């Protein structure tokens, strides 16, 4: 509850502040709080990822981008009423959707009855890996993880092409002129 309250406070801070440097630091704090929430929920692997990616790498990359642009957010050109309306309606729909969710921690839900119990019972016998998260991630769901790696690969290639390709083209243009 304390963590969620802090999360809400940080979110309000991110929305209200105009100084983008402070926003980036607050986003890092938000990621650390989120990692703590995941830790409380016993999802240590996810918490680790959130802390290292969300609070570590993203903050550095945002700062790298800020160094190339201005650090003050410009005033929005139009009124925030329509986005506010869309956000409110979406939030209402999502909150309405939570009423159909099973109670928190309930064991007899479809998610837990499908393949999860098979993984939990057979992970050590079949893969010899005590951390079920790793065995599911790398072995039982190996295809999904391969897809994830390809997504990261594609993201990296995309950024490299955007940032490096443009510079090369610019140089060529300079030569031509």
């Amino acid at each position, binding site marked *: 509850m304390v963590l969620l309250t802090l999360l809400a406070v940080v979110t309000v801070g991110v929305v209200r502040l105009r100084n983008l440097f402070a926003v980036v630091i607050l986003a890092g704090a938000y990621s650390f709080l989120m990692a703590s929430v995941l830790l409380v929920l016993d999802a*240590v*692997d996810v*918490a*680790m*990822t959130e802390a*290292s*990616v969300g609070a*570590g*790498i993203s903050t*550095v*990359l945002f700062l*790298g*981008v800020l*160094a*190339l642009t201005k650090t003050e957010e410009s005033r929005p050109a139009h009124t925030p009423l329509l986005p506010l309306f869309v956000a409110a309606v979406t939030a209402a729909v999502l909150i309405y959707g939570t009423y159909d969710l099973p109670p928190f921690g309930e064991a007899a839900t479809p998610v837990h009855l499908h393949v999860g119990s098979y993984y939990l019972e057979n992970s050590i*016998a*079949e*893969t*010899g*890996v*005590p*951390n079920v*998260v*790793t*065995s599911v*991630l*790398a*072995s039982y769901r*190996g*295809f999904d*993880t*391969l897809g994830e*790696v*390809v997504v*990261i*690969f594609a*993201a*990296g*290639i995309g*950024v*490299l092409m955007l*940032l*490096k390709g443009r*510079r090369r083209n610019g140089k060529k243009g300079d030569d031509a002129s």
Partner: protein
Amino acid sequence: MKFDVVLRVVIKIFLPFILVFGLYVQFHGDYGPGGGFQAGVISAAMVILYAIIFGLGAAQRVVPPVAVEIMVPLGVLIYAGVGVAALIFGGEYLNYSVLLRDSVAGQHLGILLVEFGVLVTVAGTMMAIFYAFAGRGP
């Protein structure tokens, strides 16, 4: 920040420990929390920290941009290669049980190898993006 003696000394002491922690997260991922994604990000964070404190040039002497750009596709190739190896050994794609005679040991080896592939791609991508952004600075 290049002239801050305290930061430089402290970071110099910290760097090997960060790298060892990254490798621990990688190779202990079978027994505790962690795995290729987290270890890749931690290892990349070490290089990025080094670049922030000691300058981009110093970091690029340690890990050249060419090596980083090779790492990005290399990890995917390792991962996919393990799948192809499983095909060659007579199993389904990414079925690690056929990699060794003992199916449990084969699974273990397969998981270690694909996690290493994940590490290489994630670390390479993170460093590549950082180099790309930091290299554009004025």
